[in-house]
């Protein structure tokens, strides 16, 4: 943005100060992402506690909790807190979002279940989840703006990329805490899982409060952003950030460009790589619960440093092409990579150790909406020579109508697959590639967004396209992808078309309209 005379410019922060700024901002943002993800990661357990399927109203609230917080409330949080951040300052605004997020997360861990307080339970959880979404909508823009406004111009991409690692690390920590808690509540695993499902799931929510207290302490000791402080001292703070951001054509066109040329594609690549891939492994490939999570934990561990690599690189060659090439590689290779997931988790080609085959029992259940027809299920644990262990389930439908019974065949499905070491490693490698794409599109984007907008309305202007792109387009990815697989049942990869189409449109718009220029000065 416009260069001011040297005497008026804010001096770049000293190295020690900038690392304090990054640490304080990142820890808080990391905790917010952690808080947001544990709800998603524990959705099944939470649904059993608060949203029983037998009660239609509770089930409806469950849908609202899933949708509203992630998709509707986040952009509203961006508007509410973005406006506040441009009016009263960055420091106190994202302190407020942290308290709101930490408080509501802790409170979710305290709410008694549906069995204890009835309908009030799902209602309280829905309310707290909405507060979480609102807080998340306000946090990211503040943290990114705060770090960028402290960073020296030639290192803005590098320093803000540390903020970018927090979303992935938040997921990493949430998965780690859940797995650890799930395994450590009793000496034997089965009892431990049972206890976790009963009450242990609350521990990850309670753990949040300790992290939040530490983060609040750190953030309270921070100073206001030097650029905002300067603006305030000169009386140039925006009077109406919302009107200036979205009511004036000159700024609105940049908001639209940021959304359709960058954040929309970034959102779908992000959520496909880190969420849909995990859901695909679990629900389509039927990989064991623990393995599907450790796969993503390893991949995140190896890929996370690349946020900083690509963020730093964007200072040298520009932000645009790193983000767009990441997007292009992703949309061109998704079909191939997800096909590898399918191939690597199939029993075909494996040799069974027949002497180790073990029956796990059998049961008969009524077909949904039927009083006479049922399914008979027989389950075995099957061991293979390569070390893989799958559960084999043979399904026989027992029809009362002899004509239907005559044409029905036994179906065999495999689930709870514990993969052999070679397949496990290959899937970790492909998952790493998926997250590498995420680091390309996400690493430089904070610096890119900060440079698009002026200081006085930066928080508001960058938060909205970010949360529509990430929250709406990205957040809907797992749901729409799963929905597509239920509409086009013969193609297990049909869910990827949503990401591919949105990513392709975004790539095209970004390539044609966005500039690769790195703004030398965000002081204006």
């Amino acid at each position, binding site marked *: *943005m*416009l*260069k001011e005379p040297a005497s008026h410019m804010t001096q770049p922060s000293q190295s020690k100060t900038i690392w304090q700024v990054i640490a304080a901002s990142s820890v808080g943002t990391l905790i917010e992402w952690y808080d947001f993800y544990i709800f998603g990661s524990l959705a099944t357990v939470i649904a059993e506690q608060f949203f029983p399927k037998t009660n*239609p109203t509770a*089930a*409806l609230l469950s*849908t*609202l909790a899933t*949708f*509203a917080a992630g*998709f*509707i409330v986040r952009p509203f949080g961006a508007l509410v807190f973005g406006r506040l951040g441009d009016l009263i300052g960055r420091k106190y605004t994202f302190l407020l979002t942290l308290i709101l997020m930490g408080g509501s997360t802790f409170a979710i861990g305290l709410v008694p279940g549906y069995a204890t307080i009835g309908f009030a339970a799902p209602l309280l959880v829905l309310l707290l989840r909405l507060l979480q979404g609102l807080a998340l909508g306000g946090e990211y823009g503040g943290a990114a703006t705060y770090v960028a406004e402290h960073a020296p111009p030639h290192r803005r991409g590098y320093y803000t990329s540390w903020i970018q690692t927090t979303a992935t690390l938040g997921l990493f920590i949430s998965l780690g805490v859940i797995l650890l808690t799930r395994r450590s509540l009793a000496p034997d695993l089965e009892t431990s899982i049972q206890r976790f499902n009963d009450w242990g799931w609350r521990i990850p929510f309670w753990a949040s409060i300790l992290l939040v207290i530490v983060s609040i302490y750190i953030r309270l000791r921070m100073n206001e952003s030097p650029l905002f402080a300067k603006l305030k001292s000169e009386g140039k703070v925006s009077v109406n950030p919302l009107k200036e951001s979205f009511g*004036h*054509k*000159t*700024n*609105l*066109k*940049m908001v*639209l*460009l940021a*959304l*359709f040329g960058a954040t929309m594609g970034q959102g779908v690549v992000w959520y496909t790589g880190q969420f849909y891939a995990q859901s695909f492994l679990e629900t389509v490939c039927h990989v064991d619960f623990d393995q599907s999570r450790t796969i993503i934990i390893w991949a995140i561990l190896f890929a996370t440093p690349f946020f900083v690599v690509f963020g730093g690189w964007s200072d040298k060659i520009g932000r645009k092409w790193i983000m767009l090439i990441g997007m292009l590689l992703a949309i061109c290779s998704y079909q191939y990579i997800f096909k590898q997931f399918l191939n690597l988790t199939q029993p075909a080609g494996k040799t069974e150790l027949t002497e180790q085959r073990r029956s796990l029992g059998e049961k008969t259940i009524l077909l949904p909406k039927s009083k006479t027809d049922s399914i008979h299920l027989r389950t075995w644990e099957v061991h293979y020579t390569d070390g893989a262990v799958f559960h084999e389930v043979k399904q026989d439908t027992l029809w009362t109508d002899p004509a239907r019974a005559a044409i029905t065949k036994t179906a065999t499905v495999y689930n709870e697959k514990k993969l052999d070491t070679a397949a496990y490693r290959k899937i970790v490698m492909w998952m790493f590639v998926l997250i590498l794409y995420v680091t390309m599109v996400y690493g430089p984007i904070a610096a890119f967004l900060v440079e698009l*907008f*002026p*200081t006085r309305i930066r928080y508001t202007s960058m938060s909205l396209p970010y949360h*529509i792109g990430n929250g*709406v387009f990205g957040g*809907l990815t797992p*749901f729409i992808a799963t929905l597509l697989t239920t*509409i086009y049942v013969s193609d297990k990869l049909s869910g990827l078309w949503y990401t591919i189409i949105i990513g392709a*449109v975004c790539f*095209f*718009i970004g390539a*044609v*309209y966005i*500039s690769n*220029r790195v*703004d030398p*000065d965000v002081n*204006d």
Partner: protein
Amino acid sequence: MNQLKKWLGIVWMLLGPVAIYYLIKTAAAEISKNPVTNTIIQWAVFVIIFIPIAIGLIIFGYYAFKGEYDRLPENSTEI
């Protein structure tokens, strides 16, 4: 390049209504297939959220067609 930006603007302007039409058509089909409250809520959320975004795409296309993106602002005095 500016000519390409301009003519592509028409594509984005058309893509907005097409997206709205496809969304409403799919929502109606899915709701009629399974008319339970959860399905209605889910598709209503999709429609309510994506219509303003599609309108945003139309505005983006209009700006592109009018040449607003021929030269991007390089400092805040231009915003």
